[in-house]
């Protein structure tokens, strides 16, 4: 199973690009390609819509990786561009800003860390909250899968195993957890303590 950063196309992107005449487009060969939001096809489609205004485009293997950015972007004349449109996740957008020092417009909204299911469906499975409690909940994450991030059971918004958010079309995460704990023969009594949200500004925490 692959997991990746799930994105969707931003509404009103074309409108936001109206005032620019020299646009460079960067796509992502990794997550956004699999999501069909920033691969070869999507970059091409956007370039066609923008026509003459586009001075160049490229799909970089991983725009979030400075090594790839350096290798793939260097030969290109992005430096003439007024603006770069980045069809990748928010991480990639920021790497491109750091590398190019240009004005960069995100073309996508970054949604979540997802599991890739069949038929191109993506399922939200992790919010990278920093304090994993998956053992306590039988391997099903309520932080990402319960709309209210509840830690001690279903709320009053659960009706017939479904969640009030999304008009009762999605499974209540706590019913899934309840069933899973039952399957595992584990009890439901212990209160899960308040969550540690690991509050700190984003910084590099791994690597030398």
């Amino acid at each position, binding site marked *: 199973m692959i997991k990746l950063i799930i994105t969707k196309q931003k509404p009103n992107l074309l409108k936001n690009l109206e005032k620019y005449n020299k646009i460079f487009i960067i796509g992502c060969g990794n997550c956004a390609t699999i999501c069909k939001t920033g691969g070869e096809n999507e970059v091409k489609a956007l370039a066609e819509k923008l026509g003459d205004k586009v001075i160049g485009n490229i799909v970089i293997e991983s725009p979030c990786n400075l090594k790839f950015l350096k290798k793939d972007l260097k030969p290109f004349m992005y430096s003439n561009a007024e603006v770069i449109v980045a069809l990748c996740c928010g991480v990639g957008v920021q790497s491109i800003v750091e590398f190019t020092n240009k004005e960069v417009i995100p073309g996508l909204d970054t949604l979540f860390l997802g599991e890739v299911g069949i038929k191109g469906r993506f399922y939200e499975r992790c919010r990278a909250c920093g304090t994993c409690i998956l053992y306590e909940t039988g391997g099903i994450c309520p932080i990402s899968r319960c*709309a*209210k*991030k*509840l*830690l*001690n*059971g*279903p*709320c*009053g*918004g*659960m*009706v*017939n*195993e479904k969640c*009030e*958010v999304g008009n*009762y079309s999605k499974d209540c995460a*706590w*019913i899934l957890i*309840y069933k899973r704990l039952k399957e595992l023969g584990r009890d*439901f*009594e212990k*209160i*899960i*303590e*308040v*969550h540690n*949200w690991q509050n700190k500004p984003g910084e590099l925490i791994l690597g030398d």
Partner: protein
Amino acid sequence: MKRIFSEFMKALYNNSFVFTTEIEPKKTVNPEGIINLARKFKNHVIACNITDNPRAHAYMNSIIASYIIQREVGLETICHMTVRDRNRLALISDVLGACALGIKNILTITGDHTTMGDNPNAMPVYDIDSTQFIYMLRKMVDEGIDLAGNKIDGEVRIHIGAVGNPNANPFEPEILKIKRKINAGVEFIQTQIVFDVERAKRFIEELKAPPPFILIGIFPCNSYRMAEFIDKKVPGISVPNEYKEVLKKANENKEKIDESNIEYFSEMIKELKKTTRASGIHIMTIKYEDIVGKIIDSVKGIC
């Protein structure tokens, strides 16, 4: 020795069968509406719940509304507090403020999701959940400390309630969740509205040990149309045909509607009083406040 701070809790410990009702502050800066309602209810109920941004609609603050009602009308309140709109800091500071204003009962609530409300793009907080809120309140009341162990000056004199849903389907996880709340130290439960006495009985039976005080929620409808609406449009709640039929027969005649409600709910209340350990009834209404006193009067002497 159990410490008792409120008239509501005193009545529960004295084994009185109690009645509560509910006032919803609206999107207004004027307190006259809630004051007038509270005056209507004052001689009928032991305490009145004050809702906190119900259905995720941003209304007048429940703590302030509770304070105004207690001060102006002398009716004790059960102040709702959701974890949807406050992180743990805001919850602690609101509880301290509520204490300073003389509020004695807090109903801990998760809160409908912001997407259901009138500011649907708002960030829902849910820093802690309602069970953890109960745990935190117990620390504040029993040990005089906040969640992180910081000392509080003075006594936090609050009774802690929670909601329960006898209509929940599936039912077992709802009961298990309430048991976590009981382990966390909740003292009383007020339920979602129930029309079917058997569902109410089943709920009370499941929570027999260790027993919190349970008030069963009822909702007299002011018309057949409203009963139909609740049956069809409110997820998870079904309205029995026999109740809908009597309202239909009443045919918009106010007196007959009143009579039908008094008959239906007094029977239900008597049955619960006779056959269960329910501690009381929580009566909720929409645009039908005068029925509250009428139903309570109809069971006087029995309850």
